[in-house]
Every structure is written in C-alpha cells, then in structure tokens.
C-alpha cells in the first residue's frame, strides 16, 4: 500500500489516556509487522503424525526411508491441498474473502468456473480460478479475466490458456481497491487485441 494509515483515521479521536496509548502501541506493532503472508493450500492442514515420525528417521540418517517419507509428504500435501482448494472450505485458514460462481455463455455453454478471492496484502487480492469445460484456443489467442464494476470492465486480472476442456486451476491477482458488488468475467482474446473480447464465462445469477 502507498501510505500507512494513522490511528486517528482508523478509530477516530475517541480513545484517550491509557487506552489510546495501548491502541497506539498495537497500531505501531501492526505497521512494523506487516501483513501476514497468504498461506499456500499445502499448509492448510498440519502434517500427519506419520510424516513427523518419518522426518525423525531422516534426522537419524536413515536416508532411504527419509526419501520415501519426503515423497509421501509431497504426495499427501499435494492431494490435501488440492482437495482443500477445490472444496473451498471457508473454515480453513486462510479464509476466502469471497467466492464467485461463473457459468459459460452461449459461446462456451459447457464451461463452469469458480473464482476464490483471498484476503488482500499490500493492496493485491490473490485469486484462484478453478475452471472446467473451456475449449482449447488457436495459437496466439487466450482467455482473459476482467474485473467488472457497475456493469463495466475496470481492468484485467490476468490471462491463461487451456489445452482442453479438463479442469484447470489458475492463480490470479486483482491489483485494485475492490468494492462490494464487484464481479468478474472471462473473455476470449484474439491475437493482437487489447480490447476485451467476447465473454465466455459470466457470473451465475441467483
């Protein structure tokens, strides 16, 4: 972020005396600490007890078993993280700020997607797009994710390609000050064009 907030801006001038001193200290520590990093899906759940035991074996230099354990860790973590990400479990940390369901337009009627918006850091809103059913595009064409506000495209949040209609997870970022009511669409971009192309995924109406 470009400017640090002051305590007065955040809470007003109501607190005085010892209370204000206490709040000021917490305020300064928050500024000094900075934002906690976004937690990767692999770390949403603790390592298994077996993992811990196998790591102990590595410490005592049982190299072969340790390598097997490491491979198991990677596999378990990947599976757990992938599952958690797909389930979009709102009770896990980090909590998603919002989840938006998208459906294919007439151009891609079989396409479906969900856009998970994570809590921001440094003014950036990490997003995870889980999409399935989009068609593979010709060379030099791609899909673009646009932020939409009040019915108008505000800006791009990133682009991606697919090699077929299978499920794909894409990490994106919205470097904007988001507002309640913001939404997103996915467009199909032709070669050399900077204007938003035809919309292929749009929010599901409720």
């Amino acid at each position: 972020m470009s400017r640090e907030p002051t305590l007065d801006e955040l809470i007003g001038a109501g607190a005085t005396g010892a209370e204000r001193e206490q709040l000021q200290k917490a305020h300064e520590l928050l500024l000094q600490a900075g934002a906690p990093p976004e937690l990767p899906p692999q770390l949403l759940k603790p390592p298994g007890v077996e993992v811990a035991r196998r790591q102990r074996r590595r410490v005592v230099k049982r190299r072969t078993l340790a390598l097997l354990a490491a491979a198991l860790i990677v596999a378990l973590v990947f599976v757990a993280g992938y599952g958690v990400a797909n389930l979009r479990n709102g009770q896990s940390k980090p909590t998603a700020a919002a989840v938006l369901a998208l459906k294919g337009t007439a151009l891609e009627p079989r396409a479906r997607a969900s856009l998970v918006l994570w809590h921001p850091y440094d003014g950036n809103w990490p997003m995870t797009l889980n999409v399935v059913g989009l068609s593979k595009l010709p060379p030099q064409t791609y899909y673009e994710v646009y932020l939409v506000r009040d019915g108008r495209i505000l800006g791009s949040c990133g682009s991606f390609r697919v090699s077929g209609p299978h499920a794909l997870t894409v990490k994106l970022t919205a470097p904007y000050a988001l507002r309640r009511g913001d939404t997103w669409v996915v467009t199909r971009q032709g070669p050399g064009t900077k204007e938003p192309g035809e919309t292929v995924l749009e929010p599901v109406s409720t």
Partner: protein
Amino acid sequence: MRKDKGDMELAIQVAQPRLRAVPQEPAPAAPDPSDAELLARVGERDREAFEILYGRYVRPVFSLALRRLGDRGHAEDAVQEAFAAIWRSASTYRPERGAAGGWLYTVARNAIVDRLRRNGPTADAELPELASVEPGPEQRAEDSYVSWRVHRALEELQPREREVIELAYWSGMSQSEVAEYLGLPLGTVKTRTRSGLARLAAALEGESL
C-alpha cells in the same frame, strides 16, 4: 465492446450476482486452551492438540520462514519441518522456563535455520550485507520476532475484527472504502477496528506470547 477513453472502462453487460463477503464462523464459546496446555498435550501425542496449535501458529511460522528463506517453496518445507520438530520435542517443554510462544519461536527458528544451512550459501536471504542501508542481523531478528508475535496475536481476534484490521492495514483501502466493501456503517468499521486493536494489545501483553 466500447472503450471509454477517459477512464479506461468499457461497457459490458454482465449478469448478477455481485461479490459478497463470505460469512465468517462465530467465535467458539468455550475458553480455548493455552499454548502451554496444548504443548503438554502434544507431548503426550495428542493429535487434536497438535492441530489446534498448528492453526494458531502456521501463519507466524510461515511468515518467519518466508522472511528468512525468501522463497515460498523452501518456506513451505521449513514449516513442515518446524511442526514436525514441535511434534517430536513438545515433551521437552517446561513451562517454568518460559512462555510457550517463545519456546515455539525457538523451535521454529531452529528448523528454519537448519533448512537455510541445507540450502547452502546461495540462498538470497542470507547473502552478506555489504555497505547496506538495510537493517542489520539484530534488527532483522527483532523485526522477525515482532512479526511473529503480531501474526500470532491476530489469530486471537474475532473474525469480524480481524477482517477489518486486515483490510484497514494491508488492503490499501480507506476506512470509508472498507465500510463500503463490507456493507457496514463507517462507525461500525471504526468500532470493530478499535475493539480489534484493544484485543490485539491485550494478546501482545499476554504471557503466552
């Protein structure tokens, strides 16, 4: 589609609905066990206690690892190793020798340093500082510990307090924008920020940190 030259926005027809905040879980009513109690249970191989402790400390540990290692992949590995070390050595924790938070910090830091050594001297985060205006090792250590304590204390906030604190400090939004984003009156946002800061200050002064 049509582009408005003035503000780079383009006309487009989109269906509703709009972005809405995900409902947060209410805070549990029962008093939470202290870190020291959890460590004692972990020492007896209590898996549930380990998971609670993990939930409280995974973000501070990851933050610390990221600061020291400078690489998300290595930091993720270091977190796994740090919690494996906590699982193995929890039974050695003695409350009379110091707060559980400090003990956990030491175990996590040691696991991260081990990872740093294994990565070798090419790790960017450990390059020697040559006539640098960057903070020295002592200052960095202090900053790391402050971040550790603050990020741990954030876990103590109610979700609605934590949400406004994170938005107010790190999203780049003004309080008015936070209020608009959350669909809350500005006064409510400021009240939650104030109560969150007060709870954070109390947590930071607590012995367990």
